[in-house]
């Protein structure tokens, strides 16, 4: 899987590269409009992370150029300008997703995986970890062939942790992903703990070979049992 990161902020770019390389993607970068245009013209990418405000041009123009060449890359707009216009325009121009800065790396991974799954693998791939199989299309989970009964939020939590398996997912990232941005002003995220507790119990009772570990004070990590 090849990913192109178009981002002018060096630290931001490096952080994303580092994090995505851990997932064994091949990551390339472009720091300005011209070099991005050049790379898009020459190479094929599975997913492009596109900043809107670039030195030398606008990310939306890159998006148009990309669509004109009819390359099958998935495009996620990553913008600090959290304006509705950018989002609406980007999605209208054919971007697959929109991610506002600042974002959590866990969220970036989830979005990248989702775009790649939809664009490249035609959305048919189930995610398998040990004896747990998640089908994102039907939103169902089976453990050792047996369906696991989860409510909507439990499913979202599990799917998110599975997508980011082996990585630390902060409580905030999890809460924002599952409950939406609206949740962001809650006094504390302690309530997540009881959700995790329920989920752990269900996984354990069904004999799942994965477990959710708490990372002290920060969040959770899914690992093989």
């Amino acid at each position, binding site marked *: 899987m090849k990913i192109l990161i178009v981002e002018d902020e060096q630290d931001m770019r490096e952080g994303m590269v580092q994090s995505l390389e851990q997932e064994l993607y091949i990551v390339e970068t472009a720091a300005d409009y011209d070099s991005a245009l050049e790379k898009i013209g020459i190479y094929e990418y599975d997913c492009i992370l596109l900043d809107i405000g670039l030195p030398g041009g606008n990310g939306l123009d890159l998006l148009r150029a990309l669509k004109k060449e009819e390359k099958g890359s998935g495009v996620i707009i990553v913008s600090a300008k959290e304006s509705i216009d950018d989002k609406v325009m980007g999605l209208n121009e054919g971007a697959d997703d929109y991610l506002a800065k600042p974002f*959590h790396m866990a969220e970036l991974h989830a979005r990248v995986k989702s775009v790649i799954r939809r664009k490249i693998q035609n959305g048919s791939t189930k995610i398998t970890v040990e004896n747990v199989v998640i089908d994102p299309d039907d939103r169902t989970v089976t453990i050792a062939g047996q369906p696991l009964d989860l409510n909507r939020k439990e499913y979202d939590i599990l799917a998110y942790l599975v997508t980011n398996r082996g990585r630390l997912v*902060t409580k*905030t*990232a999890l809460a924002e992903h599952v409950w939406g941005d*609206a949740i962001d*002003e809650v006094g504390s995220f302690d309530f997540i703990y009881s959700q995790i507790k329920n989920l752990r119990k269900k996984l354990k009772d069904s004999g799942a070979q994965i477990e959710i570990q708490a990372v002290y*004070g*920060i969040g959770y990590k899914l690992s093989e049992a």
Partner: protein
Amino acid sequence: MKVLNYTTSYLAVVLLLLISIWATIFYYAMLDEIYDSIDDGLDNQKGLIIQKAAFDSTVFNRQQFDEGDYAIQEMSAQGALHFREQYIDTLMYMQNEKEYEPVRMLKTVFRHQNKYYGMQIITSMVEEDDLISELFYALLWLYGGLLISILMVNNFLLKRIWKPFYHLLNQLKNFRLEKGFNITMEKTNIDEFRLLQQTVQQLLQHNIDTYTSQKHFIENASHELQTPLAISINKLEALAESPTLTEKDLSLLGSTLQNLERLTRLNKSLLLLSRIENKQFGQTEAVDMGALVQKAADDWAEQLVFYNIELKINAPETLIVNMNPDLAAILVNNLVKNSIVHNGKGGLVHIMVNKQLLVIENSGNKKPLDEKTLFTRFNAGTSGTSTGLGLAIVKAIADLYHFSIRYTYAQKHTFTIYF
């Protein structure tokens, strides 16, 4: 008191004083003139009588006034030579009026055929009290007439002159800095008003410029903060994945992350506020508020359980509002969140929706909140991880669509929005 009436009241006092002084002077001048004219008449009459006496001796028979207006008595040469002619005011009984009336009398002497005669000639006088009262009433009418005409002039003329001023005043009364510049000026030929209009216009423009630049500053600052915040959070997240960290390290990292995330939320809220105020939320559509409330309740279900808060929704009617769906969701969500976050364990939230309004009640602190500062930024009991902007955002959205929002307290905190 309006400036028109104010000047009129001053004018009334000044006029009263002026007219009184003028009346006194006028009265004496008049009286003087009258005496002058009467005395001339008496003098003339004296000449006529002396002429008549030269050939008509019956004149000397008039020793009393009786029906005539003069009386003549013979007098000694000694007395006559020392006599000084004089005009005096005296009283005489008048047959017709049946009372003593003032008369003017000329006492004089003349010589006729070496005899000396004293003569008194009278003529009826102006009755001073009548003159005074006549004058008084005349002046009263004048005074009244003046005041009425001044009032009328004020009302018709001055009102027209002051119209641009009141127009400007009314505009200023309705002027809101955040709503931008829409003051219109009425044309006027009066320099002072023109100057006032120019000055006000400049002042407003200056304020608007300052306000706009401050707003832009906040927006730009918020925008510019996004990237460094993103970098910091992402790097800390990467650091947290390092296997060599101790629990203590993780706890430090965790709290640093939480604070950065709080800063991010704050930033996002500020950006949201300025986007609302800049009317950057476009298309409106019919939004079902009841459905939004239900969705918010679902979103918050876990917190409700966690905090042991009972939520009751009572929606007998459907409330459809034309507004931007994102803002509608933020509006409802912020109010619901507010009622949960600022509630105690085991509390109660009661939401009611009908055709026109949305009511959200919650138990919570047994103390009413300050209505004045409740909806201002960073003022609503900013505590813990709350940004203190939730209700300010609610207010901004309500203002944008001209909904009215009210807070009341009667054992419960109640927020009511009238759509």
